[in-house]
């Protein structure tokens, strides 16, 4: 089981969730993707769309200011 880190704090729609999806496609089942993202649209949509597609959201934590870490398992 491996862990991949992805920083999308500088990305804008649609590349926020496009990059998350491309990263998830590279992983094997059970692998972890740790995503750094900002509040607002990315925080609202990245975990939701990942969960809708059957991925598991393990945690969402505030890292600093308006940056969050979302841990997704494939």
């Amino acid at each position, binding site marked *: 089981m491996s862990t991949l880190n992805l920083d999308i704090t*500088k*990305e*804008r*729609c*649609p*590349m926020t*969730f*496009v990059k*998350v*999806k*491309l990263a998830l496609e590279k992983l094997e089942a059970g692998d972890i993707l740790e995503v750094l993202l900002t509040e607002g649209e990315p925080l609202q949509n990245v975990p939701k*769309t990942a969960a*809708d*597609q*059957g991925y598991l959201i393990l945690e969402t934590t505030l890292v600093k200011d308006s940056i969050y870490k979302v841990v997704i398992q494939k």
Partner: protein
Amino acid sequence: MAEKNKLSLISMSGDFDKVIAVFTLASGAAAVGYEVNIFFTFWGLNSIKKETGRRFLGSGLMARFFNFLLGGRKNLPLSRLNFGGLSPILMTGMMRGKNVATLEELFDASKALGVNFYACEMAMHVLGLTKEDFIPEVKDVLGVASFLDLSKGGQVLFI
């Protein structure tokens, strides 16, 4: 899991800004698990040509001139204030500066996420183009009936 959502886009315009809208919606929808189909017709065909610049493509003198003037994905004009092709270059620079995906990035993401590309048989015939003039990701050459069939049950947008 519920039945897969589906978005089918008709890409008719060859304007830079409208083609950006096509690939923004396509890559975004594919990333959230939609099945995405794009039906390229008339000027929309410019964005899937293998040749991204100006080339005398096609059969017939008129078609070759048309295809030269239309060019490919790197020649798309802005729908307003094009300034002889300068504006798309400036706009791409502005998008990069603001961390917004450029047309090429959206196009590459759409391909990587398995968006289905289809070319319009009738428009290809008018412009003297064949499937070999397009990128290999173009799955098939279709007519209206086939497009209606594959877009059935999903959302359809004309851009």
